């Protein structure tokens, strides 16, 4: 069964959004245990061969792996939205629904030692790098078992051991950090690279300009192996790219910094995969930055909290759902008879089960101990400078 089966008349945007979730939910039943983090290690370590061949003809097994990864993310995000509506997830929470192919495709090229940094829409990046969904969900639930001990929440996922250098909440604020990390990777004479994810809206920030200029400059000397991955979901909150800049070719904006750039269809996992493989290798070789504008679409609301979407029409959202990256890949897998409906179903069930477990784990975990309030302010002798 396919994502784009007719859903009947849609009354409100809230329902549109809810319906994706319910509908999506409907294909999730019981299934096999969790082989996911294993899966992820694979894609994490990267199927190098096919990539070095240019990776154009993607092996069908890999397509299934990628499908699994996207289902993992989608399933997690839906559970997260549910948790938010139940009041179990708080703060600002942003999901990746509709954009899965971008991070999934690029992180397939991730190699041990590489670094990843992004903004607050950061769940997929952590999950795809192999962070335990249990800990990620527990973080969203504000529990002591969370990925960052319940101190950061949805916007601040870190898993430094796995290369996840964090999610950040100030639009554009993480971009200079990523450029500095890439510089350090060369200064320390490694062949690692940094995948720096940013949104279309963040490109209006001075931080973007200053960091991109530094990257271009340092890249001249081969000292900035940074891949800028623009997750162009066409809106910054409720503001479309057209209403944010007079020059809407986001890839071309990198010309101003002498940074090579291109666009890719962010809904087509194979296209992303090919681009990611080629670009990451080039950056690894050259030490020069490269920018990719991935055109995608956020079918979910900007934040889990907002449902009034005055800024776009139901029709537009509907249109784009026709190109849902998971739906497109399902179609491809079925057409090529790589897998049948039952096969797809099994995969969905598998992740449904895994995420259900993550939710129970999060739900049952303890809140952080109050003492945790006062730790991690400083490194070394913890100087807490107030009265406890």
């Amino acid at each position: 069964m396919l994502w784009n089966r007719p859903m009947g008349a849609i009354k409100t945007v809230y329902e549109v959004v809810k319906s994706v979730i319910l509908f999506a939910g409907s294909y999730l039943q019981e299934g096999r245990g969790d082989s996911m983090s294993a899966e992820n290690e694979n894609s994490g370590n990267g199927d190098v061969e096919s990539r070095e061949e240019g990776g154009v003809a993607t092996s069908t097994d890999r397509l299934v792996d990628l499908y699994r990864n996207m289902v993992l993310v989608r399933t997690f995000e839906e559970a997260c939205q549910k948790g938010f509506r139940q009041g179990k997830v708080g703060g600002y929470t942003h999901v990746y629904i509709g954009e899965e192919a971008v991070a999934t495709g690029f992180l397939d090229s991730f190699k041990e030692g590489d670094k990843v940094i992004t903004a607050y829409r950061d769940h997929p990046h952590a999950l795809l790098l192999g962070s335990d969904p249990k800990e990620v969900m527990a973080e969203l639930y504000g529990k002591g078992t969370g990925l960052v001990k319940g101190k950061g929440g949805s916007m601040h996922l870190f898993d430094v051991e796995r290369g996840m250098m964090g999610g950040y909440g100030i639009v554009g604020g993480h971009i200079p950090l990523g450029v500095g990390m890439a510089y350090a990777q060369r200064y320390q004479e490694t062949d690692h690279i940094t995948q720096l994810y940013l949104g279309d809206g963040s490109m209006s920030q001075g931080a973007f300009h200053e960091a991109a200029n530094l990257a271009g400059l340092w890249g001249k000397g081969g000292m900035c192996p940074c891949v800028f991955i623009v997750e162009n979901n066409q809106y910054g909150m409720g503001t479309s790219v057209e209403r944010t800049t007079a020059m809407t070719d986001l890839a071309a904006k990198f010309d101003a910094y002498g940074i090579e750039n291109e666009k890719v269809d962010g809904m087509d996992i194979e296209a992303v995969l090919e681009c990611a493989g080629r670009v990451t290798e080039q950056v690894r070789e050259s030490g020069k930055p490269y920018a990719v504008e991935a055109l995608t679409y956020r079918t979910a609301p900007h934040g889990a909290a907002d449902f009034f979407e005055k800024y776009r029409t139901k029709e537009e959202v509907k249109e784009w759902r026709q190109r849902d990256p998971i739906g497109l890949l399902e179609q491809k897998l079925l057409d090529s008879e790589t897998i049948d409906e039952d096969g797809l179903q099994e995969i969905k069930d598998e992740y449904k089960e895994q995420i259900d477990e993550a939710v129970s784990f999060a739900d049952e975990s303890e809140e952080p101990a109050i003492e945790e309030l006062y730790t991690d302010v400083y490194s070394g002798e913890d100087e807490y400078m107030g009265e406890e």
Partner: protein
Amino acid sequence: MAETKTYREALREGMVHGMEQDENVILMGEDIGVYGGTHLITDGLIDEWGPQRVMDTPISEGGFTGAAIGMAMMGMRPIVEMMTWNFSFLAADQIIQNAAKVRYFSGGQVKVPLVIRGPNGGGVQLSAQHTHSLESFYGHFPGLKVVAPVTPNDVKGMMITAINDDNPVIFLEAGALYGTKGEVEEGDNSVPFGKARVAREGDDVTLIAYGRQVNLCLRAAETLEEEDGVSAEVIDLRSLRPFDEDAIVESVEKTHRAVAVQEQWRWFGVASEVAAIIQDRAFDYLDAPVIRVSGAEVPAPYARNLEVAGFPSEDQVTNAARRVLYIEEK
């Protein structure tokens, strides 16, 4: 004649009042128009006033704040929304170096009638980067005015005053209270800057706060009354720059004891200034040191229990009051 309104409605009413008076008054900010405003303060206004009076901006806090300063120097009176004050660090240079000083370094040739407004303070698990109380941060700089109204009536009245002020005003709203209701006077209820408000009269101890902590102090005062028979006076500073020194000094001359409460961090914060003023001007009246109750000295955590533990609590306030009264803490 007054009506019961939410803080949000009163705030909007103040802005609309200004827009009706003068077409040089415009609203600018991220997603305040088409999107309706992240906190719905400006919801619907673009339909009524159009995109020139209610202008959506790109995500460029420094850029559009600077542009608004330029507009103000030309005689416009922009009201800039910081979606939250946490983002204002990106506009700090424009606010501190240009808005606050250009009148001075131009020898008085220009003025900057500009209001920068938005939610300040925490309380809804937004964690470290989205939880700041910036009263002292901006209050330190000559050239700026800084206010932090807590009642619906004050938020409207101080907004009207801010719009009519020819200087840059840092308008710090109690973000966590947008939905709370209160009596709001109709029409022009301008509230002057630099005048504190006695939120509750009392004789035994003075609780000094502003913003959300005023309500905390009022609750603490009730408890003190009930449990300890202590009559606490609560002063709402409302305006940090200019600052109403006399109000707190006079109160302490009456009560001989004071507790200063703030959500912000203790070091170099408002409460320290309050304590410094009182010991300076009411030295001989003080029967106990001024105690400061502040937020925990840590970046704001996400987990609900940690966040709550990090903010000043009613217990901390009541016990601080008991301490300066030399009575048993509970």
